[in-house]
């Protein structure tokens, strides 16, 4: 059954949209990532114009993240103080990101910039996480092996504004999460995603947060960054399709609930290994697409109606 999307101005099968939402929602629940990095390209693949796909995914992320945060919060797995500290940087970063987006779009290079960002970031992160999680799994097999130090001291821990994050059992500079939030905010606005897949490894490896606290706290932060992006996109580009977002949400929130439950049954390192595999697969696909000769050498960018 086809449904007409008023802003995207295309007709799509309602069950395809619901199924897509459910699949991405499941992943989002398991890993605490918003799933935007999968949802946006998939929407473009099924025929939604790219600017509308980016903006509507942001809208969908708001709802999916609310649902996800509630599920994690009931288990006590959300560090609100950390979430809001990340958010301070995140909001500032997303304004800079939207500004950069507009400039690259004017130069006709936004799609290339997006793809290159994905390839570099996903490639590096996936590789690092894969290696680390394999090491962790091997260590668990050999209980006699030396345990790694709880955390290593680097120059990052010498920064001022030391703050206690009780839930995460951390005493670190507030500048760290603010800076992290800012960087992810810039990238997430440019790439049109919530940024969970960048935030999560950084929270684990850079901030040293406990793995169980990470997905819920990341989702909390994504709610607000995605809401900010939705508002900015609706206001400047008129590209938010609320009907599309709502359909994706219906499938997505249910998928996310099951995903969260499934995620708690997996051990931390297995979870990270699985995420690393997905991240590397997406990076490889994107890199491949950049280097093979495109079927269509000429393209007319979807115009920003307005």
């Amino acid at each position: 059954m086809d449904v007409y999307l008023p802003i995207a101005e295309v007709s799509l099968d309602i069950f395809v949209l619901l199924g897509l939402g459910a699949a991405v929602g499941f992943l989002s629940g398991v890993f605490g990532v918003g799933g935007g990095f999968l949802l946006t390209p998939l929407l473009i693949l099924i025929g939604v114009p790219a600017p509308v796909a980016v903006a509507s995914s942001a809208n969908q992320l708001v709802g999916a993240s609310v649902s996800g945060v509630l599920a994690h919060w009931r288990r006590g797995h959300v560090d609100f103080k950390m979430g809001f500290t990340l958010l301070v940087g995140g909001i500032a970063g997303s304004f800079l990101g939207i500004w950069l987006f507009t400039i690259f779009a004017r130069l006709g290079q936004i799609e290339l910039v997006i793809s290159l960002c994905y390839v570099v970031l996903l490639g590096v992160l996936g590789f690092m996480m894969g290696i680390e999680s394999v090491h962790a799994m091997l260590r668990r097999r050999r209980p006699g092996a030396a345990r790694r130090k709880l955390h290593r001291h680097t120059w990052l821990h010498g920064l001022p504004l030391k703050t206690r994050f009780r839930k995460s059992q951390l005493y670190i500079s507030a500048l760290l999460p603010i800076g992290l939030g800012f960087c992810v905010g810039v990238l997430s606005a440019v790439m049109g995603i919530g940024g969970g897949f960048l935030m999560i490894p950084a929270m684990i490896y850079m901030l040293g947060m406990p793995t169980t606290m990470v997905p819920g706290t990341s989702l909390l932060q994504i709610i607000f960054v995605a809401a900010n992006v939705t508002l900015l996109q609706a206001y400047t580009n008129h590209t938010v399709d609320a009907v599309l977002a709502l359909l994706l949400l219906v499938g997505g929130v249910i998928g996310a609930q099951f995903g969260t439950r499934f995620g708690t049954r997996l051990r931390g390192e297995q979870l990270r290994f699985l995420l690393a595999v997905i991240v590397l697969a997406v990076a490889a696909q994107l890199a491949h697409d950049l280097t093979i000769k495109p079927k269509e050498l000429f393209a007319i960018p979807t115009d920003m109606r307005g």
Partner: protein
Amino acid sequence: MRNARLLLSALALVVSPSSPGIADTVTADLSSHSIAITTGFTGASVVLFGAIDQPGDVVAVVRGPERDVTIWRKAKIAGIWANAEAVTFGNVPSFYAVAANRPLDDIVSPAAAALYKIGVGNFKFEVKSPVAPERAQFFADALIAVQKRAGVFSPSHGKIAFLGDRLFRTTFTFPANIPTGVYQVEVFYVRDKDVVGAQTTPLIVSKVGVDAAVFEFAHRRSLAYGAIAVVMAVMAGWLASLPFRNA
């Protein structure tokens, strides 16, 4: 609705551009003057029918509203395929379809086809980028090819069927992705390879119902629309988590 019909009939104009002395008239109308894009819209077809007063040929052209279009060409730069070159064209129709009772080349002389912009080969795009004429033509051809694949430029002309010598009819089909706006349906009456009569009728493609209201709201009150979209998403997320609360 009746008022709209009257207005549209008034808009339809009759012109006889050449062959003075002979009253060569073509009268044509559409089965519907509007295409309403609703929630279940998967495309539409409109029947064009009419009559000519003496035996001859008929060519019909449907043209969507014109706009500026930028087309990019990808090239391999440092091993990566990237947008390398762009040309912007003015007055590019957003939709184009043509129908005739015989192959176009047999009916219309090249000069007449060029004058009345019959057939995709006779578009006269305004080049808005500083490029050499042959480069512009290269990009214009590519633009037409891309639009043909997208289904908004008809790849081949449709068939006009004659009932006897005078009455004719044809069906234009529109894909689900048609752009909105006021389209012009031009009917050319051709004899001895020259256009001797013509008529233009408007066809309005618009969104109706809830979708049109949403679209309007999103453009007129964009900030409020964005805020509602966010609130709706938050509500949906909260509602969906309720059944799982005690799990």
